[in-house]
């Protein structure tokens, strides 16, 4: 039944999303999904695959859930009432609302009653279909920790009777911000893992982009296009950003033939859609910077100008550090170093700040100080590829100074 496995991979999340809406409960929906696939495995080989497998699975899952509740009503009368209530509901709606169901599910997973760290886990498991173990692996934590977050999140959703819907217009901006934050967190975890590197994590970037596309189709808000553009443009350089052993490759040294042109084109289009609104937010400014980085000639004055606007819109030490590096590219290493040194207090434990400082010192010929800064950076990172990169830089210092 490999076809059914394939169908599970492609359809199970959509079917689950619809069942959550129809049954109003995550656990009941998960049971119903399993029942529906068991029913399909036993019936389809005899009767053939139905014309619309997804609708068949939703319908089967819903009936199985009502059956289950009726059986359980022998021990718990409340479930009998619930079964009766569900049976009275009309048949599931036609297929075109399925993607809307996924959208509802994203908003439910990112509802303010769900703690922020659980929002990411809920979205990855319920919307993207990752297992608890895969999420734990990607976030370097244990499966019981993730499982407990998910159990608690579902309990909160049930206890607070969170309505299973896309929020009304007046709530949309703040609720959308939470969803976009989660999607971007998922993306950055896959794009720039804090430590280690493996397939599951690379998959996270793809999952986030997929989610971004779904969001942009259903909810064509400028901010959604900004985030989609940012993810596509950053991800377009994924293959060129790291060497075979996973070490980072700097922009100037990247093999541009490895850049993903279709991602760049799609990202540019999304950015244009966002810019048409006449306003540009933090995601859009970062996307514009990413767009500059995939041009044939890097326009550093323009990048500095974009960082200036980003500093106004969404200031942070990391933005200031990136701006300092861009200033160094525009005005030379001394100007950059002055800015990086001004940040040293806020970023004293951020290894990339020390790495940037070391690089500027090296360019200025201050080799002993550069060595010291590389050593500080090395002491602060657990990320193996970054360590290798920094060690190579450190050992090349001695040849530079010779």
């Amino acid at each position, binding site marked *: 039944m490999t076809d059914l496995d394939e169908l599970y991979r492609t359809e199970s999340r959509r079917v689950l999303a619809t069942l959550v809406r129809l049954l109003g409960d995550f*656990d009941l929906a998960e049971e119903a999904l*399993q*029942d529906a696939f068991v029913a399909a495995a036993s019936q389809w080989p005899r009767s053939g695959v139905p014309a619309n497998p997804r609708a068949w699975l939703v319908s089967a899952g819903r009936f199985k859930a009502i059956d289950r509740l009726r059986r359980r009503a022998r*021990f718990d009368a409340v479930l009998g009432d619930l079964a009766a209530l569900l049976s009275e509901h009309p048949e599931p709606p036609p297929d075109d609302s399925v993607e809307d169901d996924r959208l509802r599910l994203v908003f439910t997973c990112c509802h303010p009653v769900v703690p922020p760290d659980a929002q990411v886990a809920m979205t990855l*498991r319920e919307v993207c279909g990752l*297992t*608890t*173990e895969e999420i734990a692996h990607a976030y370097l934590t244990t499966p019981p920790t*993730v499982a407990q977050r998910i159990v608690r999140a579902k309990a909160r959703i049930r206890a607070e009777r969170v309505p299973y819907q896309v929020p009304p217009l007046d709530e949309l901006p703040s609720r959308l911000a939470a969803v976009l934050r989660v999607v971007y967190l998922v993306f950055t975890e896959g794009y720039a893992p804090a430590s280690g590197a493996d397939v599951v994590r690379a998959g996270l970037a793809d999952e986030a982009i997929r989610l971004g596309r779904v969001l942009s189709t259903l909810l064509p808000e400028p901010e959604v296009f900004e985030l989609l553009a940012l993810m596509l443009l950053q991800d377009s350089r994924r293959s060129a950003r790291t060497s075979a052993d996973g070490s980072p490759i700097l922009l100037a040294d990247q093999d541009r033939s490895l850049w993903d042109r279709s991602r760049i084109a799609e990202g540019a289009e999304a950015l244009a859609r966002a810019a048409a609104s006449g306003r540009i937010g933090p995601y859009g400014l970062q996307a514009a910077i990413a767009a500059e980085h995939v041009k044939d000639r890097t326009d550093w004055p323009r990048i500095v100008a974009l960082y200036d606007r980003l500093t106004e819109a969404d200031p942070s030490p990391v933005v200031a550090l990136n701006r300092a590096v861009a200033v160094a590219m525009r005005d030379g290493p001394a100007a950059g170093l002055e800015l990086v040194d001004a940040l040293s207090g806020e970023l004293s434990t951020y290894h990339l700040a020390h790495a940037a400082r070391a690089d500027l010192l090296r360019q200025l010929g201050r080799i002993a100080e550069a060595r010291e800064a590389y050593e500080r950076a090395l002491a602060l990172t657990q990320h193996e590829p970054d360590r290798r990169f920094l060690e190579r830089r450190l050992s090349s210092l001695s040849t530079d100074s010779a």
Partner: protein
Amino acid sequence: MKYVCLIYGVEEQLNAMPQDDLDRLIEETAASDEELRASGHLILGEALEHVHAAMTVRVRDGKLSATTGPFAETVEQLGGFVLIEARDLNEAVRIAGRLPSARVGSVEVRPVIDLAREHS
């Protein structure tokens, strides 16, 4: 993935249960097993005799010793287990939470080591 749900309870409490409640627990457990079999989750589920029926066996220096009673004296005793196939830990936890015994005792959910996966 395979998970084992280890069902613990205080035997004295179970022994003191009114017969009606006990019958109902057995009936619910049978219904729950049936449901888990139908949904494709159940691999094997068994209830265990009381700990006073237990023996503990050790082999040291080639000599076998067999003592009466359980290996460890604990507040709650192992009273049964269910071996299930589940998509992930959260599904296993959801299934454990639906076991009727979970309302009386505690259910410890433990992933079974997948040797094929460990060495891939």
